[in-house]
């Protein structure tokens, strides 16, 4: 990334981690200068996949189709989903992000996000919860969403269409003959794969303050993207709409092998249960 970012060595000593100073542009930090991008290592994905397949065989033998489903939450060790209001808030902020990427910056983010969630065709249970909110809960949630949206609009500038922004991209990578599925969702993806240099960037937007788990989540998403597209992304980033803090990391082989180890630990825990 650039020298203007502070390296958080205490969080991950062996890799480059960078936090964004308040004055810096997150999208510019993510994309960086085109001339500095590394060439794509297309042999890496096959090796990672083989490593995972071998590890799964050692841990679980030959799992039956659909036996194990690994989600981001499992890998980062997040506690079980708590209050559904928190999930609803996250879903609404995700809708605000989609609207923002589409060039729509609403004056009333809660109303806009609610309309978008109800018309999205996804998260039917959360849409049902939204409809059932009483007046006080709705007002409280509206205030929260408005403050998160304000931070989002402030930290994330308009995205040029030439960076091919994709929102809410699902990843579902089958391994071990379909016995294990690695699942995740990237809030915003920039850049097109297939070129000579790496240029795909992943952004995860969270409504909670950033902590060590978000780093693990980012490495997992980088691994999924590598397995899915056959080439590693350039950078991954997390943006907290709670306080505007952001984290940008270059993706390299060390990060991806760390993610493989994390996935195998998760599968071992699942098998042991």
């Amino acid at each position, binding site marked *: 990334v650039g020298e203007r970012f502070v390296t958080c060595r205490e969080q991950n000593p062996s890799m480059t981690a960078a936090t964004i100073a308040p004055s810096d542009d997150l999208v510019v930090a993510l994309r960086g200068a085109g001339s500095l991008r590394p060439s794509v290592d297309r042999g890496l994905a096959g090796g990672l996949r083989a490593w995972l397949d071998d590890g799964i065989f050692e841990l679980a033998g030959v799992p039956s189709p659909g036996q194990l489903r690994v989600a981001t939450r499992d890998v980062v060790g997040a506690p079980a989903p708590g209050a559904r209001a928190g999930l609803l808030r996250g879903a609404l902020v995700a*809708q605000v992000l*989609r609207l923002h990427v589409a*060039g729509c910056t609403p004056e009333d983010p809660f109303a806009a996000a609610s309309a*978008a969630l109800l018309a999205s065709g996804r998260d039917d249970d959360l849409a049902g919860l939204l409809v059932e909110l009483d007046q006080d809960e709705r007002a409280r949630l509206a205030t929260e969403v408005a403050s998160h949206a304000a931070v989002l609009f402030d930290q994330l500038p308009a995205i040029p269409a030439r960076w091919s*922004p994709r929102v809410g991209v699902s*990843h579902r990578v089958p391994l071990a003959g379909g016995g294990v599925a690695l699942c995740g969702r990237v809030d915003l993806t920039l850049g097109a794969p297939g070129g000579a240099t790496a240029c795909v960037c992943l952004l995860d937007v969270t409504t909670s303050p950033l902590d060590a788990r978000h780093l693990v989540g980012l490495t997992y998403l980088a691994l999924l993207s590598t397995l899915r597209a056959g080439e590693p992304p350039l950078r991954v980033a997390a943006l907290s709409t709670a306080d505007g803090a952001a984290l940008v990391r270059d993706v390299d082989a060390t990060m991806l092998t760390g993610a493989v180890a994390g996935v195998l630990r998760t599968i071992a825990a699942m098998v042991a249960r």
Partner: protein
Amino acid sequence: VSTVRRLQVPTPSDLVDLLTAPGSESPVELGRLVDAIAARLAKTHPTRPRRIDAFVAEFGAARFTTAFHWSARAARRPLGTAALRRVAAGTSRDLLRAAHEEMETLCDRAQRGLARRGALGTWLAAAPTEVRALCAAEAATWAWGLCHLVDLHAHADRVAVGVPDAWFDVPRARTTLHGRRDATGTGVAASGVLRLRDGAPGARALDGLLVDALVAAMAGRVPMTPARVVGAWPDAGIVLCVELDDVALRHAARLVVTCGSSLTTTATPSVEPVLAA
């Protein structure tokens, strides 16, 4: 099915070569196959019109238990296809803008009373601005998935994107076949068909691909069998390629007849299996 290949993340050039390479076998006698399908479907004595597509073949009629309604998820493929068509034709600069422009066209048509009640344009015209913005973002995201498989500009002369789906009314059987296709090879007599799908391929994913390919073959002005059908699951990074030989087409024909029988015997609501597109 005789020949299936799994391709691990092919480059756009590899995929375009697949879509444009000629088949290894002479195509099956389609006219006889169509007659056989029509005769078998007519024997099931449908009491009302029915529609058969890849999703019925893969998941059965019972999958669609609720009435269809438009949503951003359901709208992304038709809007994304139209956006691709606009960008390929050079009338729009980028996919997001193209999706917005397509929606404006649809809304304008609906407001002038030129769209039916359940049409996408009618729903969009009544939807608030933010819902339309969400639809544009989803459509552009979907279309980018196809663009990353097939380079629009580098392969414009070899592959057609934004192609309309294939429809075929089976004579005397009150049955319409719907074959989805997201790109086709051009320039050779028997080109390939590409389908872009969500998630990861299921146990009967090949059946769905074959039904799409069979309907594409039947629906041509001059019935002609594509050389192969390619299914891409970008979420999973998987591409499957099925050669359309006699064995594959006869299997697809049997699937269509089986679906017709199951739709006749299963009580289903009036739904359109578009939601999972």
